[in-house]
């Protein structure tokens, strides 16, 4: 890989706006993410964190500003959207596994139907991924038979099966019981250390301290403050950031 490629931002967002009817959820977000960076986004409920990361794989359409992912600008062009989506993996708060399919089928679905891989190849890679997230023995179970932590790890494997360049996480641990949070965070930390570009909405500050390159504090559809974990935790500039951090850190 050339250094040039590494310097070029893989995600460029400029002045992104989003309205739901009259309600403005995003009021001009700008962000650049370089390859291999881990970005943590945090902020109060309703501040637009989910909306923002969902604009990156166009689960939400932005209405003003530009988003360029891996050199492709997100427009109404359907081919662009399909191309972008196969480069981006996403992990949801509620897992959103397909309950009528086995774990293995969940993971091989996109490689088989989108990448058109033969079934054997897709299954080989799925098994490697299950190995990586630590649950190869669950391959033939249905999602309903797994614990929350196991389900979320399957969801991560499913997202990785398309060999994406970018992974989006929307509060991946907030629906989990405390004893299962760690098993999911461990997988995410391993992923971050392997060089994956990641945008993570989370309030797990331990995770942020461990692997985040930069952190963004969202409030009311705006980036209030951003910086390295050290800057954010040790010297927050904004009062709102300080207040919010003090609230979540006392928990």
């Amino acid at each position, binding site marked *: 890989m050339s250094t040039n490629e590494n310097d070029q931002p893989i995600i460029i967002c400029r002045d992104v706006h989003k309205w739901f009817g009259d309600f403005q959820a995003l009021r001009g977000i700008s962000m650049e993410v370089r390859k291999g960076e881990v970005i943590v986004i945090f902020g109060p409920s309703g501040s637009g964190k989910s909306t923002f990361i969902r604009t990156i*794989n166009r*689960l939400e359409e932005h209405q003003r500003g530009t988003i360029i992912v891996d050199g492709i600008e997100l427009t109404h062009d359907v081919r662009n959207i*399909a191309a972008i*989506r*196969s480069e*981006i*993996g*996403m992990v*949801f708060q*509620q897992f*959103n*596994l*397909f*309950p*009528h399919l086995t774990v293995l089928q969940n993971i091989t*679905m*996109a490689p088989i*139907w*989108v990448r058109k891989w033969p079934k054997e190849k897709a299954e080989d890679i799925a098994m490697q991924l299950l190995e990586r997230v630590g649950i190869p023995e669950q391959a033939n179970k*249905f999602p*309903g*038979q797994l614990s929350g932590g196991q389900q979320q790890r399957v*969801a991560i494997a*499913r*997202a990785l*099966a*398309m060999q994406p360049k970018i992974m989006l996480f929307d509060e991946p641990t907030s629906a989990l019981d405390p004893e299962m949070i760690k098993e999911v965070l461990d997988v995410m930390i391993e992923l971050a250390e392997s060089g994956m570009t990641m945008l993570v909405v989370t309030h797990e500050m331990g995770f942020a301290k461990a692997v985040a390159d930069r952190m963004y504090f969202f409030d009311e559809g705006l980036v209030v403050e951003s910086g390295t974990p050290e800057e954010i935790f040790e010297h927050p500039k904004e009062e709102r950031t300080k207040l919010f951090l003090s609230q979540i850190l006392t928990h």
Partner: protein
Amino acid sequence: MTTTEEIRPPEPPGPITWIKQNLVNSWFNGILTVISLVVVYYVVVGSIRWAFVSADWSPVTENLLLYLIGQYPRGEVWRIGLSLTMVSILFGFSWGLWRGIMQAFSLTLIVSFLVLAVLPATPTAFPLSMRLFALANPGLILISYLISRRWKIPARVMISAWLISLTASIILLRGLGRSELIPPVEVNLWGGLVVTFLLAVGGITISFPIGVLLALGRRSSLPVVSIFSTFFIETIRGVPLITILFMGSLIVPLFLPSEMRVDRLIRALVGMIIFSAAYMAENVRGGLQAIPEGQVEAAQAIGLSKFHTTLLIVLPQALRLVIPTIVGQFISLFKDTTLASGVAVLELLQIARSILQSNPEYLGQQFEVYLFVAAIFWIFSYSMSTTSRKIEVSLGVGER
């Protein structure tokens, strides 16, 4: 000592106590109980005496085969038998493979054959060979079931087998143009339970794909498609089935060139399909709406196209949810086939009527005949709804 007594669950009341508590706990209830017992006694004894002594079942026992297959040429009955055999075997295999709803259908079929085998009838109205056939078929279903439990047959093979043998059955029943072995049989001669089943099964299976498409169409983002689907669904649902059948039999021929005469039975079937498709669409739409938005988002996020998302993620889940509703719809369609008698289709009820009219000796035996017809409908509907309800309850996680 007191604690151990407290832990023990209360004794269930003995029969005497139960009667004291529930039936004769006051003089008023006591009198009610006595009166009810007397009424029940007379009703039960009266019915039994009527059924076995005073009722005259000859319109049924002398014509049993007519109720089952109508005027289908008696020399060609083996063709119906062969079709039934194929269907039985397939149900047995499908039961082993898919359980669930196939189990319900197979059990219903077994019950029906057994009932048929013991129905009283004169030897000419229902020959011994047919009785034995009816008795053998449940065995066939069970054997096929056991075979498919033992050796898994791929679903793909099973589905092709169904399609092939259903087509084969229709050809077998209708016959082929110049064939010696299976000469054509006028569709107007078909009748009785066979036609009732044809209308119900044909109606539900053909309306199924149409209904699915209509349901998807109604939710489509293309205005033309969704307006057309909505218009079709709401129009049909706002009209009674009998009027659709009438329109089918009166109006449709007016629009067709005179050489294209479509058979009564086919016209009725088309009416049933159109009617059933509209309800099917609404049932399926209910299932589609129950699928959480997160499923679609997850499918899109891994890059599946809209088409694949619908086909692989949304529809399978939605259809699984509405299977019980579709069984319910099938049961009511099964009973609604009687309306086809209004357009001179010789289904079970119409056959019953024509049998009553055919012989002056049967005058005054309407009650027996209609009771028999009602009983047939009841056996199918009841066994189907109970078995399918039981299966719903026992559905495990793995089969969701």
